[in-house]
């Protein structure tokens, strides 16, 4: 590694940590689901079971919400990366379907509220 290699490595790490700091910052707002499709952004509470249909250029992406867990159940895209992303349940997590232009994320609340407040050894 040469001097400027270290500079670009440091810059990459700085951007990783910096953007994580901004994106995962805790919020006072209640936990909610943000569904973004070409029509706009739609907000849903995380604690109510429902099936959300987001309409994109390829068709309908079906999103399931059950017991605080969210996942893409079906999508008309070819590669199905959104289905493979699995279940999200915590603030800051997301699932998206690029070909159908649908983006789902959980926002609000402090990230990972179920975790311990402190640890001692």
């Amino acid at each position, binding site marked *: 590694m040469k001097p400027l290699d270290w500079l670009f*490595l440091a810059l990459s790490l700085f951007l*990783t940590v910096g*953007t994580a700091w901004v994106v995962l910052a805790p919020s006072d707002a209640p936990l909610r689901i943000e569904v973004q499709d070409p029509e706009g*952004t739609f907000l849903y509470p995380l604690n109510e079971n429902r099936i959300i249909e987001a309409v994109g250029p390829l068709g309908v992406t079906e999103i399931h919400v059950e017991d605080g867990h969210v996942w893409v159940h079906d999508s008309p895209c070819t590669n199905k990366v*959104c289905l*493979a992303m699995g279940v999200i349940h915590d603030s*800051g997590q997301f699932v998206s379907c*690029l070909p159908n232009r649908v*983006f789902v994320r959980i926002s609000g609340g402090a990230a990972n509220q179920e975790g311990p407040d402190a640890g001692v050894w």
Partner: protein
Amino acid sequence: MRESGKPVRTDLVAFFGALSLFFATLEYLFPKPIPFFRLGLSNLPLLVSLGFFSFREQLLLLLLKVVGTGIVNGTLASHVFLFSSGASLASFIVMYGLFRLIPARYLSLTGISLAGALASNAVQILLAITLVYGPASGVVAPWYFGLGTFTGLAMGWGATQFQKHSKWLERLRRGS
């Protein structure tokens, strides 16, 4: 096509373009941790050829890579192609510029690869926020930059090793 009286080596550029397509297809073997993220394997031929292709040859190789992968992946007529071409162009400009402007004693292919990954990911995030999804998609940024750091290092290391040890590349360099 000529540059400073030197003919463009279309057969060699086509060969490197084919390598790019091969690597782009290989990427399908690896699971994608986040949507539209790429390992950047198809950038290896671009990185390795920085030393002996002219600007026009590099640009032609980039065009082959972008359009070729668009055809192979079936995304040529979709907005996904916008991501791919925007990211590839940004990455190429940064990598080529750094290679030409910074002496090799200060910057190796690893740093160039890291900078290329950084430019590519930054452009994809900006395109996602401004044109495709909106501000909420900024949540992918830490994943992109984090994974991009890892893949940028890996690709840079791979390209460096190939440049050091490949006799085939050495013969090409001497012939150019």
